[in-house]
């Protein structure tokens, strides 16, 4: 075999991420300060009807590592989705993403969760979401005596995601450093899934 191929250093990448994170944080602070202004406070004081829906679309920068005995999917990329907020706290969401790493692959997620209502902490609205995730496209697949054919169906995982740095105001939201874990279901084997999203920004459309 040939010797290990040299890999490039990641110093530049870290620098770039740091700049992005700082910009996102600044955006969140700005959003937060806007929300606490009198005008924003006036809006947030509007009564919410018990059955109200609020549909938002969002973009996100996800990363995922799906690992089971049958396969590995890993990468980072970008995606978009839609989220319905019901009664001010219940979250129903679906999103798609395209990731690059161990090949090129897609991620589809369906989620149900809850956010802290604005009546509790204003624009600071952390959320927890249960997710069903599917990964399709390029994967690193494994074969063995017990598994003489490579997995061919999409990889499925169930898990949860926490968004602790999440701010909602004036029909906009930003979430930083969301992390999720889950169970990678290649039954009868069960592996693990780690998800992360550096930043998610969204806009309420109605």
């Amino acid at each position, binding site marked *: 075999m040939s010797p*290990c191929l040299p890999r490039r250093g990641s110093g530049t990448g870290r620098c770039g991420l740091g700049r992005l994170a700082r910009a996102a944080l600044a955006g969140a602070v700005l959003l937060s300060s806007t929300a606490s202004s009198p005008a924003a406070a006036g809006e947030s004081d509007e009564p919410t009807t018990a059955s109200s829906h609020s549909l938002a679309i969002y973009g996100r920068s996800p990363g995922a590592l799906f690992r089971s005995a049958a396969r590995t999917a890993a990468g980072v990329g970008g995606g978009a989705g839609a989220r319905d907020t019901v009664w001010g706290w219940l979250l129903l969401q679906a999103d798609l993403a395209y990731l690059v790493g*161990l090949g090129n692959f897609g991620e589809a997620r369906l989620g149900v969760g809850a956010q802290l209502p604005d009546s509790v902490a204003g624009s600071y609205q952390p959320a927890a979401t249960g997710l069903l995730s599917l990964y399709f496209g390029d994967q690193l697949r494994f074969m063995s005596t017990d598994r003489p054919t490579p997995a061919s169906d999409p990889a499925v995982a169930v898990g949860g995601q926490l968004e602790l740095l999440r701010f909602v105001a004036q029909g906009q939201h930003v979430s930083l450093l969301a992390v999720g874990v889950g169970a990678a279901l290649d039954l009868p084997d069960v592996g693990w899934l780690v998800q992360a999203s550096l930043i998610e920004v969204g806009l309420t459309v109605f």
Partner: protein
Amino acid sequence: MITRARWLLLFLAVATGLGCADDVLAGADLAALGRLAAEVSIDRMVEDDVALMGAHEGDQSFPCGELGPNAWTLSCSLTNQASWRVVEQRLRDAGLEPRLHRTEDGALSTVNVLCDLPGVERPDEVVLVGAHHDAFYSGVDDNGSGTAAVIELGRVLSRYRFARTIRLAVFDLEELGLIGSARYVDSIPPSETIVIAVALDAIAYARHEPGSQQSPFGFALPDVGDFIGMITNDDTTDRATEMFALNQRLELVRLEGAVGPSTPSALTLDLLRADHAPFWLAGMPAMLLTDTGNFRNPYYHTPSEWLGMMDLGLWGGTARLAAVAVAFWARGPR
């Protein structure tokens, strides 16, 4: 009624399962393949590897100085001039007619040794089995083991006829960047179809204690390094499944496989470290059989490696598996 329905479902499940197994190895004469596998001689492979080690140890080192002041230090321990002559002579001794594929390029000139067993029905469809003859130090495992296996496959397979052509290919300068195999791939005429190319690269080193096997990023390899690894990509999934089926039916060697994406990326570079890679990059089906080299072998690319460290069971089993798979894909033996 419920019981009857259950029996019907069970029957359908079993029938479907058997059908799939039969489909994977459709047309295979497993008895003949088993006899062919039994003809592979580990003793002859050891003799060939000893001859190759002698060639490397007595050879003048690669002229690394010609690569400039930033030449990779290890390249000064590479030898490749005497080894191709050993391969050519051993194939001639087996009654075969090897030919040389030469490319002149100064210090990076290459000599690939090629040898065809012409197909009797579809000679333009080629099943290639290859290795590389250049090596650091004596190269007992990397890649005397793979080269010796290819020579032995030449001896055994040449006793039979096949519908497709079987091509033995022993490449040069793999260690400096797959140079010989890349040049060979560039030379393949459009009239030929590579059914599959199988590279044998470091196939004889095993360890049996827990923790002896390391994994590249993303892999889920067993903890004990006593298996042969098969590396394929999405374009070669069917061939990989057939190789697993053949191995299970004939019980040849402990086999673990990884199927990588067809699109190379920075995280899959470890999948591209042998002579199957130029075929992949040219869109041709190819696979690698390997003991995983430095992920298991602490003597990888060092002068400390010697023949007594090799695992003859793994080595012989891997050569038999390669012989059986190549014969099956070449539509034989006859």
